[in-house]
């Protein structure tokens, strides 16, 4: 299911058997991008859109994205909202507790650059990329579910192009 479609024509399948041959990179990348388990938290109004995206209408489950309550289980964090300095301390710690490979999707203006708090927000971190590396930025205030889905598909593309041999920035 899926692997033959998703791994393009470099996958070889024997005519009669249930054996396929592919590269390690493709297999790993396929398995990683198909089950991006998500850290179970939301930070501000972006979290409402994230919840809407998780709910039945947009259905994040179909990408294999399931919220998990422990950093030990998860592969991605959706930074869904305003990151206060108090929360940034916690996020950094949660990020450090995640097993590699780990990915960050920064959702909305606040997480990208501080958003409306850029000038007078003494308590707001002006962009989550100041403390942890971000893979995909989704602009919007807050982004609609469609925008978040596009961000996640971009992240899947990014994972699909990874390689064990060479690091892709």
């Amino acid at each position: 299911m899926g692997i033959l479609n998703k791994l393009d024509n470099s996958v070889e399948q024997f005519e009669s058997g249930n054996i396929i041959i592919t590269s390690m990179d493709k297999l790993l990348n396929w398995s990683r991008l198909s089950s991006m388990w998500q850290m179970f938290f939301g930070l501000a109004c972006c979290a409402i859109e994230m919840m809407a995206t998780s709910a039945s209408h947009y259905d994040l489950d179909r990408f294999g994205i399931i919220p998990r309550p422990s950093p030990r289980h998860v592969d991605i964090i959706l930074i869904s909202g305003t990151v206060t300095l108090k929360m940034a301390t916690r996020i950094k710690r949660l990020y450090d507790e995640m097993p590699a490979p780990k990915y960050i999707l920064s959702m909305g203006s606040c997480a990208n650059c501080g958003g409306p708090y850029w000038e007078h927000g003494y308590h707001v971190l002006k962009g989550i990329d100041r403390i942890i590396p971000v893979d995909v930025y989704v602009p919007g205030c807050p982004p609609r579910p469609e925008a978040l889905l596009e961000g996640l598909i971009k992240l899947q593309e990014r994972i699909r192009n990874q390689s064990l041999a060479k690091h892709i920035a």
Partner: protein
Amino acid sequence: MEINEIYNKLKSVFGEGIGELKTDLPVRPFFFADASKIDAVALFLRDEESMQFDNLSCLSGVDYDKDNLAVVYHLCSYALGHQLVVKCLVPKSDPKIKSVSDVWAAAEWHEREAFDLVGMIFEGNPDLRRILLPEDWEGHPLRKDYKVPEFYNGMKIPY
């Protein structure tokens, strides 16, 4: 009771401790009370038969003017349906005021917030810690003269 009746009654009990009633501003009528008497005033407002201010709607901290902070008490009475605003000035040089958390339990967290952001000390509050900012934060950000620090725990704060 009307605001004038409430005010006159308080004035007759506490005398000099109650300042002038201001009704000509585009806000709810208010008066200043002596900060050193606020615990007695609060208890009177809650327990007096004709007052019965059983609910503290809000307690706010304000950077009031050059020399003073202020604590603003918004009160209302479910029993009698009237409202009241009392303010207390607290000098910046020695920002201490008595807590009213033993009169209205709701005051406890409100006082922690005022302490956290504006920095007055509520004497008698059983748990006067920061409530919003991290515990190792320095300064009180809603003071007019507050300067945003460059860094907090290695994280750059300005844009």
